[in-house]
């Protein structure tokens, strides 16, 4: 018995000592390996549904033949829980070499100190031409950490058959026209528009159209913007639009996947990136040539509705062991050849304004490009990712749709301000 106690005591002390001594995380210092000596294996993380498998294959084979001695291992990651995964990767000794991160999350990683500063490479990458909605989130304190990769924003996908049935001939150019035709379409067993209650990206667009914002920084502190009259007007419009269909008020566009709901054929309109049409056609091949696109209508006919510029940036972790080789990969991915290829294949907005013309072939991409001109980003704060992780806006939207918007907006704004003002 005494022996057992002694052994247990020794183990506990040993564990305690190990705990105290490793309070400093050591991280791998990784100056880039000299290119082309031994075979360099580079790991690249891209997100689910970002680019098609065919595109990945083409890029990998092109890159590997152009850079002898380098092997590319492109791994696909899921969006769910990616924040923790990337944070752990940046904190580890063995990080991937290039990571694709959402433009709403890149600020947080950049501020953490785990990402390589690429300010001196900006000219090399054609930085003057970048889409502001992608470049700004990747910049902290004037230093460029995230390299813009691609952008996409929402448009309205509509069912041509249902439009014909209701006698709607032209796409609406203003909000009032939009409400009118949606009311006309919301008859019989059909839904005028399927808009889930928690699609906060769409709500942001309506708020920006009114002149409001999700949060404003007066120089030193952040103030939540959901309780301003402009934001409440935006929420009001969302409520009106949402009521013209059967969208659930307590879930978002992924539960159930809105493409599947649209694919059933009784929904007239859907707010989604043009890439959503691919998912709809996959779920219901009968809808193949029946899908039309128009940009989200603004308040007046001369300016399209504001949209959230969703997209991704590329970062190189400091913990990567092949930083120079990783930069070459980033350069290739952000370069004109790949951007053109990707824009055509995936209907994305390429990272440079000058390449926007590439999209003129596809109706969806053309509508998207019109909207992209009025694209906005989320508040540029390293703590914004925490606001998203805590679901503040989604909960506010459900509460506003099922109860009193003004009261809930005050609470939500305060919550946002608290999170954004946290000092790290």
């Amino acid at each position, binding site marked *: 018995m005494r*022996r*057992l106690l002694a*052994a*247990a005591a020794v*183990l*506990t002390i*040993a*564990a*305690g000592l*190990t*705990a*105290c001594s*490793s*309070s*400093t*995380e*050591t*991280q791998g210092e990784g100056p880039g390996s000299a290119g082309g000596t031994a075979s360099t294996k580079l790991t690249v993380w891209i997100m689910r549904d970002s680019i098609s498998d065919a595109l990945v294959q083409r890029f990998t084979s092109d890159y590997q033949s152009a850079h002898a001695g380098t092997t590319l291992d492109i791994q696909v990651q899921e969006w769910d829980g990616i*924040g*923790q995964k990337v*944070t752990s990767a*940046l*904190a580890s000794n063995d990080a991937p070499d290039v990571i694709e991160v959402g433009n709403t999350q890149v600020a*947080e990683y950049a*501020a*953490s*100190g*785990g990402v390589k500063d690429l300010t001196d490479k900006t000219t090399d990458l054609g930085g003057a031409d970048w889409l502001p909605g992608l470049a700004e989130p990747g910049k902290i304190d004037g230093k460029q950490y995230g390299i813009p990769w691609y952008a996409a924003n929402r448009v309205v996908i509509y069912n041509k058959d249902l439009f014909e049935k209701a006698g709607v001939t032209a796409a609406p150019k203003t909000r009032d026209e939009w409400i009118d035709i949606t009311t006309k379409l919301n008859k019989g067993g059909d839904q005028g528009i399927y808009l889930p*209650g928690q699609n906060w990206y769409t709500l942001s667009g309506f708020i920006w159209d009114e002149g409001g914002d999700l949060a404003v920084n007066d120089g030193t502190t952040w103030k939540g913007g959901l309780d301003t009259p402009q934001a409440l007007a935006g929420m009001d419009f969302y409520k009106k639009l949402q009521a013209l269909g*059967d*969208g*659930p*008020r*307590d*879930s978002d566009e992924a539960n*159930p996947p809105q493409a599947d709901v649209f694919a059933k054929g009784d929904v007239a309109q859907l707010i989604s990136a043009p890439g959503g049409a691919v998912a709809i056609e996959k779920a219901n091949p009968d809808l193949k040539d029946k899908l039309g696109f128009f940009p989200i209508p603004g308040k007046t006919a001369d300016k399209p509705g504001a949209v959230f510029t969703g997209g991704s940036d590329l970062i190189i972790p400091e913990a990567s062991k092949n930083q120079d080789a990783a930069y070459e990969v980033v350069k290739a991915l952000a370069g004109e050849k790949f951007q053109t290829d990707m824009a055509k294949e995936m209907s994305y907005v390429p990272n440079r304004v000058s390449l926007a013309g590439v999209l003129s072939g596809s109706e969806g991409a053309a509508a998207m490009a019109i909207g992209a001109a009025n694209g906005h980003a989320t508040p540029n704060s390293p703590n914004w990712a*925490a606001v998203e*992780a*805590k*679901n503040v806006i989604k*909960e506010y939207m*459900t*509460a506003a*749709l*099922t109860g009193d918007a003004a009261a809930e907006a005050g*609470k939500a704004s305060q919550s946002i301000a608290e*999170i954004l003002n*946290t000092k*790290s």
Partner: protein
Amino acid sequence: MASEAPQPPGNLLSAGISVPSGRRRPGAGEPSHPGSGDAGSRHPSAAARPSGVNPRRRRSGRGAARTIAAAWPYLLVLPTVIGTAYLLFYPLLRSVVISFQHFRTGELIRGGAAFVGLENYQDVLGSAEFWTVVRRTLVWTAVNVVLIVVISTLTALMIVRLGRRMRLAVMSGLVLTWATPVLAATTVFQWLFQSRLGVVNWALVSLGFDSFDGFSWFASGQATFAIMVLLIVWQSVPFAALTLYAGLTTIPAELHESARIDGAGAWQIFRGVTFPMLRPLFGLITSLEVIWVFKCFAQIWAITKGGPDDATTTLPVYAFQVAQSLHKYDLGSAISTLTVLILLVVLVAHLRRMYKHEGEGL
């Protein structure tokens, strides 16, 4: 009669539950030791003797061999202890250490966390939000444990009285519920209560409650809380019910018969005969359920992430939110440590009350 009693389900023995031997007739077999997996008839020996050696002859000489022989069991157990120490004790200690440091994303990635003493604890204990969460967690635990114990007791009492086929059906249902993977069951519950496409709303509307057409269960804090209670109780009852059933089978039927002959009703039999005999088992079940419900995290996070409007944010969920969503790992660790301490207080209070009655009422 005890000798005809069916064996408790095998997995109870390996789960370390020793069915109390209390008033069993002698000769019914010794209580099984946790982990032995046997009916307990073998005499537990602490030291394995090297084969072919008579200990009596070895007593005076060969001290080294004897020391090794005596230390052998500890050496055999050492790998497991080291593994447990590394996987359980190290994270626990590390978490406590972090709770005394300033530890955010920067420190996680760059290192160099500074000690700040009790500042994190002061922050946490001083925030009104924390105390709201503690109150909510205590209410959550109380509601769930009461429902679980009551429902599983009733279920166990029912199983004892069933015929063979119905007993098999009910126990199979319980075991299948127990075997369902936690997150699979959680997802199904989410689908059941979906506002437009869920079965519950459809059923209620068919029964005539038209106000439930498109009702958003997960938009209301109280409705969501109720759904989570339902889920947890549903997942917890099988274990408790089967364990209590196992205990009930050890009570000799003569006691019930004599009580009935004396004119006692069902409730009096339960209060006078069944409960006093199974008091340790009830105490064990309640303690285990308190622990498991208190630290319940996966189901709440999967469905609500603590919402809506913090209605289902219990201490474990709160700690996770603060640590992983807000990246305040130091405060999260402080909350976790406080959770363990609160749980200890709750358990000790409960156990003391349970065993204070041990002396009376026999």
